[in-house]
């Protein structure tokens, strides 16, 4: 698999506190500029002071040149239908959601199966910060400093067999705790999946935090997936089940509207959604008149992931 994962000497890695404060400074200056331009009220770029901090290392090998979005934007503009279908719903309705205790069932074509507590899952996984572009299928985008670990190093622990061609993920189903599930807007529980090579790709991240703090509930706590070259809906949240399968998982959005959402869902400016164009996107939080930008093939990660799809008709497998 030809991927570009730069080797970085430990001495080259900026200590997290230095790196973090630098970005906060830049972010703060930027936010000031933006709000001066738009005349909008200013909000802090970073997380609230009382948020639970994580221990992690910044991984500058996975970063982008664009400035990250403010913490507030990332945590109040969410598509998480389990907590309501409006963007601001999850931040309001997920406040009381408790993520401990939490367990994940591992099932299917793997030698190691069973129920694992969240602590088990996280054991021996050093956390790193990666700044990724996030492109929603609705044609808006963010830049998010995620904290997590490569999915590959988690999946390897379960020793998938040769029959494991796909990995299927399932979100918690509990309408009492996730009020959005009382409304049949989608078939619950939410299911997503990846081909095994996509799942094992070094860009694919299991996320437990953002902006250096524990993942807020509305962003998919305690455990979510991030696949930066795919549309956001592939990044399943609040995962309780990982299943290795031989056949392609039946994923929620692809079931709901098969002509609009595919299994692959790779970011592709050349293939429009039937109802809107995917050629451009609007960057949330950017100043007015400077929000719209061209969408990049594979969300800008083509160098690393295009080889996964060699010979595939991406119009057909959208």
């Amino acid at each position: 698999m030809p991927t570009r994962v730069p080797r970085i000497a430990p001495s080259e890695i900026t200590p997290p506190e230095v790196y973090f404060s630098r970005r906060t400074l830049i972010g703060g200056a930027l936010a000031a500029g933006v709000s001066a331009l738009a005349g909008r009220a200013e909000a802090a770029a970073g997380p609230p002071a009382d948020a639970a901090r994580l221990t992690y290392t910044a991984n500058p090998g996975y970063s982008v040149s664009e400035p990250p979005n403010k913490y507030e934007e990332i945590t109040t503009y969410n598509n998480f239908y389990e907590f309501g279908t409006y963007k601001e719903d999850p931040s309001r309705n997920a406040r009381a959601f408790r993520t401990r205790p939490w367990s994940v069932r591992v099932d299917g074509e793997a030698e190691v199966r069973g129920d694992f507590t969240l602590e088990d899952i996280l054991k021996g996984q050093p956390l790193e910060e990666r700044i990724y572009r996030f492109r929603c299928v609705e044609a808006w985008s963010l830049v998010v400093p995620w904290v997590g670990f490569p999915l590959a190093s988690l999946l390897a622990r379960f020793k998938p067999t040769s029959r494991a061609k796909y990995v299927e993920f399932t979100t918690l189903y509990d309408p009492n705790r996730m009020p959005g599930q009382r409304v049949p807007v989608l078939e619950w529980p939410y299911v997503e999946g990846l081909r095994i090579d996509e799942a094992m790709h070094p860009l694919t991240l299991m996320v437990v935090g953002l902006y250096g703090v524990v993942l807020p509930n509305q962003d998919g706590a305690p455990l979510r997936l991030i696949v930066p070259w795919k549309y956001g809906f592939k990044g399943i949240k609040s995962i309780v089940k990982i299943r290795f399968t031989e056949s392609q998982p039946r994923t929620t959005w692809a079931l709901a509207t098969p002509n609009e959402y595919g299994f692959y869902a790779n970011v592709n400016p050349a293939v429009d959604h039937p109802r809107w164009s995917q050629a451009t996107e609007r960057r949330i939080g950017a100043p007015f008149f400077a929000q719209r930008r061209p969408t990049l093939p594979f969300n800008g990660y083509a160098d690393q992931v295009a080889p996964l799809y060699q010979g595939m008709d991406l119009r057909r497998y959208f």
Partner: protein
Amino acid sequence: MNVTERYRYVYKPLVFVAGLAPLVWLTCGAFGWFGASLGADPVKELEHECGKTALNFLLLTLAVTPVRNILGLPQLLRLRRMLGLFAFFYALIHFTIYVVLDLELNWSTLGADIAKRPYITIGFTALLLLVPLAATSTNGMMRRLGRRWTSLHRLVYVIAILGVWHFYWQVKRDVREPLLYAGILALLLLYRVVRAQAARSAARAAASARAQLTSTSRVGLSLRQSQSD
């Protein structure tokens, strides 16, 4: 104050202020005045709120006739023009925000959207159809067009259907809100269908009653004639 004065000096100014309230609120949100906020994506919020406000005024315009009939308030008709003009006003702002803030004046995308995206095509059609209605909303135009004015302004039914359909079609999955609009619109249109039917059958009944009356009187006449013979 008589009724005319009450409408001119109290009710109409009140409706005018109320009609501007959404715009004032959204402006405060856009500039962060008085603690108002439009959330993380002010462009979409402005766009959607103006669109929904246009639909609200469209439905209010269509509610005038049923409400005045049911509550027996014929004077309510005096407010209808302003409600209709507010619908046009907010639809125009909605479109302007879409072109200026959302598409950032990318004219080729605008052309492609209108031509290729059905929900934008019908939304744009609804806006275009509102133009002649707004242009002929003055007293002078009403006088000049006479009976044709009424026919022209029946377009509002088409516009309302297109507008709600536009809303329904752009929603990703949760269609509850557009369905609520569709339900209200259906009731308002149904009211007119039922009334028109009732009026037709009433006219028929009256016609047959008249015919019966004529034939009865003729019979009476012939009876009298035969008696006199």
